[in-house]
C-alpha cells in the first residue's frame, strides 16, 4: 500500500510520518505542496509543522496549496486522509472536518507525553485499536485548542465521531477534551497529538502510535 506524505514549506514531521508508514509495513510516497496530483497513492498523511509559517491562521494558507485540491476531492470520495497537528488544522480550514483549532487557553506551548483514549475505532485510521484503549503519544502545539459550536459538538458526540480524547487533564483547552475527530464516513481523521513520534521505544515514549498507520493498511486489505 502506498501512502502519500505531503511536505508543505514549513512542515516538520513529514520525515517521521514517512518513517511510521514504513515501520507499519506501507510504502511512503513523498508528495509536494505544489503537486497537482496524488501519484496514485492509496492514502494521504498531512504532517505536523508550521506550513507557510502558520501566517494568517494555522493551516489557512496551506488549504489553498495546489496539492490540497486533489486531496480534498479524493477525501470526499473516500480516500483515507490523516491530519496530524498542523495537518488537523489544515483539514479544519479546508472544511473537510468541522470546527477549528485556536491558541491554547493557557497561552503556552505544550510539549509532553500525553495520555489519550481511543473513543472510536470505526475509522480508517483507528480500526486496529479497541475502542476504549488508552495510549500515550507526544503532544506538542501552541494552537491546539479544539473549538466548535455546541450543535457541532453534540453532533460529533452523537455520531461517535470523537475519535481520540485527552485524559488525565486537558492540555490546551479543547472543548470536551477532544483530541481528534473524523468525518461522517470515517475516512478523514484529524488529531493534535503525534502518533508518528510513538512508533519505537528508542525515539518515542511508547509504540502506541504505530497502530494508527497499521489501521489504514488493514482497512485497505479488508475493503
Amino acid at each position, binding site marked *: 500500500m502506498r501512502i502519500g506524505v505531503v511536505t508543505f514549506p514549513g512542515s516538520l514531521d513529514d520525515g517521521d510520518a514517512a518513517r511510521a508508514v514504513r515501520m507499519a509495513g506501507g510504502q511512503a510516497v513523498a508528495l509536494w505542496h505544489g503537486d497537482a496530483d496524488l501519484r496514485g497513492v492509496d492514502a494521504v498523511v498531512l504532517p505536523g509543522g508550521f506550513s507557510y509559517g502558520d501566517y494568517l491562521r494555522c493551516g489557512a494558507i496551506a488549504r489553498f496549496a495546489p496539492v490540497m485540491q486533489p486531496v480534498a476531492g479524493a477525501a470526499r470520495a473516500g480516500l483515507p486522509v490523516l491530519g496530524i497537528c498542523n495537518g488537523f488544522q489544515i483539514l479544519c480550514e479546508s472544511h473537510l472536518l468541522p470546527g477549528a483549532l*485556536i491558541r491554547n487557553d493557557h497561552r503556552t506551548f505544550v510539549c509532553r507525553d500525553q495520555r489519550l483514549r481511543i473513543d472510536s475505532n470505526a475509522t480508517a485510521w483507528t480500526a486496529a485499536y479497541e475502542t476504549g484503549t488508552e495510549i500515550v503519544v507526544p503532544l506538542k502545539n501552541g494552537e491546539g485548542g479544539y473549538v466548535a459550536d455546541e450543535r457541532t459538538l453534540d453532533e460529533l458526540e452523537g455520531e461517535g465521531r470523537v475519535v481520540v480524547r485527552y485524559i488525565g487533564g486537558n492540555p490546551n483547552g479543547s472543548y470536551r477534551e477532544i483530541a481528534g475527530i473524523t468525518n461522517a464516513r470515517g475516512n478523514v481523521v484529524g488529531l493534535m497529538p503525534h502518533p508518528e513520534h510513538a512508533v519505537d521505544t528508542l525515539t518515542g515514549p511508547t509504540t502506541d502510535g504505530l497502530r494508527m498507520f497499521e489501521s489504514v493498511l488493514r482497512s485497505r486489505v479488508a475493503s
Partner: protein
Amino acid sequence: MPRVVVDVMPKPEILDPQGKAVHGALHRLGFDRVAAVRQGKRFEIEFDSEMTPELVARVEQAAGTLLANPVIEDFTIHVEG
C-alpha cells in the same frame, strides 16, 4: 489609491487567549478599569484600479474564505478613498 479594509474579530463565544493576555498586561500597567480586551486583525487591501461593486464583492468572498475563518471569526468590510 482605492483601498478596502477588512476587520476580523474572534466570535464573541470563542475564547480569545491573546486578548486575555493583553488584558492582563494592561492591568499590570495600571489600567485597572478595563473590563475585557479582544484582539482581531485588520487587512488593508489596495487596488490600482477604480473600485467597483464587483470588486468589493470579490473581496468579501476572499474575506470569507481566506482572511477570516467564519467558524471562529466575524469580519466587516469597508471601502476607503
